[in-house]
């Protein structure tokens, strides 16, 4: 799991799930703010079919922050929604992942989070799959 992966995971994670996992970790690192949590909007771009020209899909609310642990590791967070505590926890996870606690954080927060989100995505996909309609083209009579 590289940094891009866990940043994306933390950005999309539901706030209450991250909060539960963070509390379960039981770490209370000392840190100082480099950028206190602030709420703003970003334009989300999409590409038709994943490869087409980019177009503006719409705006979404994000909260971002940056902090430094006492050891000097810098954690950044951009999370969806306006939950400042989630941004703080996400930045702490990012900062801790660069230090000696990385293994513990990975096992206690990131891996369960990834599993949880995969399960949610799977549930949603299953619900959608149940509504799938198969269309068949019958052989046309005129030859």
């Amino acid at each position, binding site marked *: 799991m590289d940094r891009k992966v866990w940043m994306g995971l933390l950005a999309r994670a539901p706030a209450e799930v991250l909060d539960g996992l963070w509390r379960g970790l039981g770490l209370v690192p000392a840190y100082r703010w*480099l*950028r*206190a949590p*602030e709420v703003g909007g970003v334009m989300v771009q999409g590409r038709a079919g994943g490869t087409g020209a980019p177009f503006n899909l719409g705006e979404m609310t994000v909260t971002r922050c*940056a902090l*430094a642990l006492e050891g*000097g*590791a*810098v954690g950044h967070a951009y999370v969806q929604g306006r939950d400042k505590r989630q941004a703080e926890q996400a930045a702490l996870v990012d900062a801790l992942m*660069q230090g000696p606690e990385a293994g513990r954080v990975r096992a206690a927060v990131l891996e369960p989070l990834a599993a949880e989100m995969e399960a949610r995505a799977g549930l949603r996909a299953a619900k959608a799959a149940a509504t799938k309609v198969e269309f068949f083209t019958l052989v046309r009579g005129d030859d």
Partner: protein
Amino acid sequence: MDDAVMTDAVMTGGFSDPSIQSAWGFRAAMMAMARPGDILAVSGAQAPGGGSVAASVLLLVLCDPETPVWLARSHDSADLRRWIAFHTGAPVVATRGEAVFALGAWDSLVPLDGYRIGTAEYPDRSATLIVEMGALQGAGAVLTGPGIADRARLTLPEVAAFRANRALFPLGLDFFFTSGDRLAALPRSTVVADPAEVV
């Protein structure tokens, strides 16, 4: 170690209370532009690489991802580029012709003919120069024009360049002058005269 150095130089030096401090900073910038020659004090920001407090505040309140910044040789440094990227998101461009804001000492900002001066349809599409000065005082060149009751005086690095800029009106460049925590401004509408010529 690298991280710690980067943190101190690049990620600090921004506003500690952004909404209040940027409003104060912007107010000062606006008042300075509205009353050319007035010298105002600002505080709250410090960019790495030798930039003044006033220039740092101006960068924070004026720059955003849509305003390309050009750094003149006197102020260009990797730390300052990263500081601008972290705190404002503004792109740092390679040539003065692309810039909306430029920062540097007068000697490395001149000549002025490479900057954007706007077009007849859009005179606002022009550059604003932040000129770092050794000192800033209400003496020297004589200023008259909009926003000045009678006449004002300001220590400008020279007179000829600002006269030529005034002649382009309504096109042209606007200037901020910074020294320590103090700033003053010279919009394109101000007429600049050499003190020796003024009776």
